[in-house]
């Protein structure tokens, strides 16, 4: 099975950090729907996560499927290692 490069772990953690901010802001905005600065922060982080997603996917393959990511040839979505294995 493929081994992941060291840079993968740092990039994945960066994505996890940005996504965590997005989770926190999501729950916050669910109860504070009119907090304009927080919505701005949310949209900035949403943009940043698109960039980081591409970085991680270049080393790891698609993070989501059902068409939320493009596929290489051959189909690489179902290739390991999986999150609990790395």
């Amino acid at each position: 099975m493929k081994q992941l490069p060291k840079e993968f772990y740092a990039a994945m953690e960066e994505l996890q950090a940005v996504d965590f901010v997005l989770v926190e802001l999501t729950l916050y905005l669910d109860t504070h729907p009119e907090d304009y600065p927080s919505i701005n922060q949310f949209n900035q982080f949403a943009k940043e996560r698109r960039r980081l997603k591409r970085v991680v996917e270049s080393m790891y393959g698609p993070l989501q499927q059902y068409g939320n990511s493009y596929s290489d040839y051959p189909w690489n979505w179902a290739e390991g290692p999986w999150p609990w294995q790395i």
Partner: protein
Amino acid sequence: MSSHRRVWYPYVSPFDPCPPIKAKAYSTPPSLFLGYQPPNLEQFTPMEALKIGTLWKVFYDPWYSPYEVSTEEDQS
């Protein structure tokens, strides 16, 4: 000790079978006190937030195991 602990002193009987733990503590997390979260509270950096489990400093309330306490307790 973190300000989110409260201590109480249970009755000690001369017939208690184990050596008494004289002070017992329990957790009173920040969500009990804040009310509706006000806007613009101070945030952690994204990486800090991920490590800790919250974006906002006001909610920081870590719990350490007795195995870790000697090294980490004073951080809170």
